[in-house]
């Protein structure tokens, strides 16, 4: 039974271009299945959706000053081609910007998709088809590192009642991009107590797109502080790379010995209860 099994590489490209520049990007499309497949290509603009890296193709408008074409001699965008079983095809995408393009970002996805087969089935049938996409993040700027502005928003620490044992303390927040160009969330969360650093969490280098926000996530782990913790006052500082021009965000929280106190009260209650029963 036929299946769809494609690999598309790279999965994302990010370029800073000067107006009027043309770039070439090669994509490898691999058919990992044991069946040949008829494929096609497509480019769609998108805008970010939500704060976790999803995209929305429905309200996006193509930039008329960016032209996409294929540099392959035998292939055009939208032209079907056959990829044999367990074989690879290189598709070379040409991205051309006009000299009068505005200095801003444009976001697209390069899709490789399966052409729908027309079947004359004798029984009720749904036919599944597949489509796989690779994102293109383009910054058009006259400088290599265009100036960006950012801010840390909605930073929160949970749970509200922080005990020395049991539950990890989790940090959540957003990085807002207040500029026309995307950047990566390069920064750290510092947790200190009595001027001593308890933990430093490195932020994942997620892309924050222009005038949009992205959730803060941490490298190799969740953004959290695991128990046990000493009771006391803790300071939290979120600091982004200086090139992102963000004011560091500072807050604090208290860890209380709630569970030991409850345990002692429980034990005391049992002792007094037993004494009371003995007296009776």
């Amino acid at each position, binding site marked *: *039974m*036929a*299946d*769809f*099994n*494609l*690999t*598309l*590489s*790279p*999965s*994302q490209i990010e370029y800073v271009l000067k107006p009027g520049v043309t770039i070439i990007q090669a994509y490898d499309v*691999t058919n*990992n*299945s044991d069946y040949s497949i008829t494929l096609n290509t497509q480019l769609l603009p998108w805008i*970010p959706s939500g704060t*976790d*890296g*999803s*995209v929305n*193709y*429905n309200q996006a408008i193509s930039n008329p000053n960016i032209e996409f074409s294929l540099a392959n001699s035998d292939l055009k965008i939208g032209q079907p081609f056959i990829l044999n079983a367990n074989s690879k095809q290189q598709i070379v995408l040409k991205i051309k910007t006009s000299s009068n393009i505005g200095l801003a970002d444009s*976001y697209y*996805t390069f*899709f490789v*998709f399966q052409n*729908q087969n027309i*079947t004359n*089935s*004798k*029984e*009720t*049938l*749904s*036919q*599944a*088809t*597949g*489509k*796989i*996409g*690779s*994102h293109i*993040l383009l910054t058009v700027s006259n400088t290599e590192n265009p100036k960006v502005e950012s801010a840390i928003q909605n930073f929160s620490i949970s749970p509200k009642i922080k005990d020395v044992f049991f539950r990890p303390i989790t940090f959540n927040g957003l990085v807002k991009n207040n500029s026309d160009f995307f950047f990566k969330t390069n920064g750290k969360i510092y947790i200190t107590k009595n001027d001593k650093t308890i933990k430093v969490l490195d932020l*994942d*280098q*997620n*892309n924050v*797109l222009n005038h949009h926000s992205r*959730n803060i*996530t941490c490298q190799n782990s969740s953004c959290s502080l695991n128990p046990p913790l000493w009771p006391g006052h803790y300071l939290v500082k979120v600091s982004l790379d200086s090139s992102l021009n963000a004011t560091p965000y500072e807050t604090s929280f208290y860890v209380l010995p709630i569970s030991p106190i409850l345990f002692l009260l429980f034990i005391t209650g049992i002792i007094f209860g037993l004494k009371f029963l003995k007296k009776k």
Partner: protein
Amino acid sequence: MKTKNVLLFLLLILFLINKKNILAQTFDSTNFHIDFGNFNMTSGKKTSTTYTLTDTVGQNAPGQYDSTGYVVKAGFQYIYDKKIPLSFEISSLDLAFGNLVPNIGSTVTNTLTISTPTGHGYDILAIANHPLKTIGTNSTIADTKCDSGTCSESVSAVWTDAFTYGFGFNANGDGTSSYFTNSTHFRQFADNSLGETAKIIMSENVPVEDHSALITYKINISPLQSAGTYENSINFIAVPKY
């Protein structure tokens, strides 16, 4: 003075006799040869029947060093990038329901499997070209509204009642819990012919390798449903998180 010179000479001889080769690593490709700039005590690949271990012992200043344009990962083998490319698989593309029997739900399944590279989660979206319909007569099997009449292309609900009719699907596996509570919850496919847009059915925010979900397609027809062969096409779209 003479004794000192003799001793120095003997020491030199001893040093030359006992000299050992320095084992540095090199990397070769068709076009390049890189001498490994690392005088560690030992490094390399150790294998047994079950395990492969790569190690570096004695690395000076181990760790990851980032700068614009390059990353140096000194020492630590455990921070290897796995270099997993973006891959998407749909098992079994032809979803044949056989002969449909009124009031008895008919189901077929296939599996979606995805891998994403370092730094990227994924979204898988789904959309149908139109409802299940017969070619020519254009009779349709309507999309299910589930037992409560509340499910849509973006909201799932329980569909177990034999007297609830229509066509819908469930996704059960990695990255589906935000969209389907369990295997009794179904949703409609977004309908392209009505101008609806593809909806996310499976999503994760972290890189994954061979994460999969079982898709169950269900049809339940009423005794009044027109006889015929119904068809449609369902497109699954895999994109990385940016």
